[in-house]
């Protein structure tokens, strides 16, 4: 058995209900219904267990976490337990008084998602009339001393508009921007051919981001995640399996990452019946890809294995059909040619598509 230290962050997927229908949603294809969601009491106990175990931060996410009618109580409980609270939200259910109540309850940081800098595309991507309300939220947040991040999920249809997004952030009280390129699992995998940027688009965006990072240093911090299909080495997914992060689904299953349920050989334990600490230290799912014993070549003897931990297990399953394989986006992976073939297809086929509206597969709301 591989021993490990405690997780540093708890990703609390409070609900899968959401007013948006984003075509790259990171939720699983099978959404949990409201009737399966954990109670206020169970979440409060989990926050307490997490803080006692050494967790520093809670990410309240979903779905739309504000769809929970007990959200103020949940913030208060997590803060009382001693956690730092990030709220990852579309902003749609916010009004001025709810915002003030959340901050009074102890909310530390709001991460507001934007689907673009302009109304038309943002609404198309989110499948909802959402953009104008987000702009109102930006004005309300200015009245408070709370951290604000604008999060932009980046893909071929908006990657050419980064400057507009930065300008939007500069007009707000944001101290951080996240440019998160879509990663291709679940809904995004289904919509991949309409989302993946071309090499030319990506290279241009990298230049803009570097320039803006330098220009805004000390004012707005810009974080950037590249689309890993274009990377030379895989991302250290979740900072390594079962190393730093634990995700709790709306119904209480504890997962090492958002997408882990796609791996059919794993079964997950639930915080309703076991403590977070027991699950973290002993459950088979968290042990499965922890450490190095599970690794195949070329990872097993690779100098980078402690940097990227073999990449993403879910991507290995999706592209290689084997969750223990080297992440096929790695340039050293035996199956890298498969990713190159996908990219070659994209880069050849793209120009004509840019002018037509794709037929998106929208994520539905959950019951």
């Amino acid at each position, binding site marked *: 058995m591989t021993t490990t230290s405690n997780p540093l962050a708890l990703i609390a997927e409070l609900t899968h209900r959401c007013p948006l229908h984003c075509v790259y949603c990171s939720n699983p294809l099978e959404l949990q219904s409201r009737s399966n969601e954990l109670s206020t009491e169970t979440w409060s106990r989990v926050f307490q267990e997490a803080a006692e175990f050494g967790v520093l*931060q809670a990410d309240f996410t979903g779905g739309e976490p504000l769809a929970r009618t007990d959200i103020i109580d949940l913030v208060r409980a997590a803060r009382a337990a001693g956690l730092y609270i990030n709220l990852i939200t579309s902003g749609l259910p916010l009004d001025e008084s709810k915002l003030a109540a959340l901050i009074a309850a102890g909310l*530390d*940081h709001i991460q507001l998602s934007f689907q673009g800098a302009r109304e038309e595309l943002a609404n198309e991507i989110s499948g909802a009339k959402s953009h104008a309300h987000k702009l109102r939220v930006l004005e309300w947040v200015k009245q408070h001393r709370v*951290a604000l991040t604008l999060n932009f999920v980046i893909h071929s249809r908006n990657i050419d508009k980064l400057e507009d997004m930065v300008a939007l952030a500069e007009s707000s009280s944001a*101290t951080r921007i996240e440019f998160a390129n879509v990663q291709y699992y679940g809904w995004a995998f289904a919509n991949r051919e309409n989302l993946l940027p071309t090499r030319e688009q990506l290279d241009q965006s990298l230049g803009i981001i570097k320039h803006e990072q330098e220009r805004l240093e*000390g004012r707005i911090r810009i974080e950037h995640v590249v689309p890993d299909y274009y990377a030379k080495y895989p991302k250290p997914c979740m900072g390594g399996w079962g190393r730093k992060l634990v995700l709790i689904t709306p119904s209480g299953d504890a997962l090492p990452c958002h997408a882990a349920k796609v791996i059919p050989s794993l079964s997950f334990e639930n915080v309703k019946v076991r403590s977070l600490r027991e699950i973290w230290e002993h459950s088979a799912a968290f042990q499965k890809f922890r450490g190095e014993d599970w690794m195949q070549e070329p990872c097993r003897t690779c100098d980078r294995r402690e940097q990227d931990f073999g990449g993403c297990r879910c991507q290995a399953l999706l592209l290689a059909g084997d969750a223990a394989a080297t992440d096929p986006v790695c340039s050293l992976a035996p199956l890298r040619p498969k990713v190159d073939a996908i990219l070659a297809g994209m880069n050849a086929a793209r120009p004509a598509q840019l002018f037509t509206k794709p037929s998106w597969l929208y994520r539905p709301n959950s019951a």
Partner: protein
Amino acid sequence: MPPELNSRPRLAPGCRLGENNQQRVLLMPERALRLNGPSLEIVTRCDGKHTVQQIVSELQQIYSKAQPKKVEEDILGYLTLLQKERALDFEL
């Protein structure tokens, strides 16, 4: 760019001190920094009241065995790092 000596650093919105397993930390959006010895002495003085110059003077007294110039350089370096992390506002 190093901070000006007469400016008053203050923790930025969403940045605060926390403690975990007897370890003091600076909590900020999506990250945390461990604070030990000098870094804790610096961060606890980023209160919008101390100027950078005052922080330097007070730490030069606390760490009187170290070269005063070196203490100043280390403090300015650390404040610059926190500024890049966007953990500080500097008020004049």
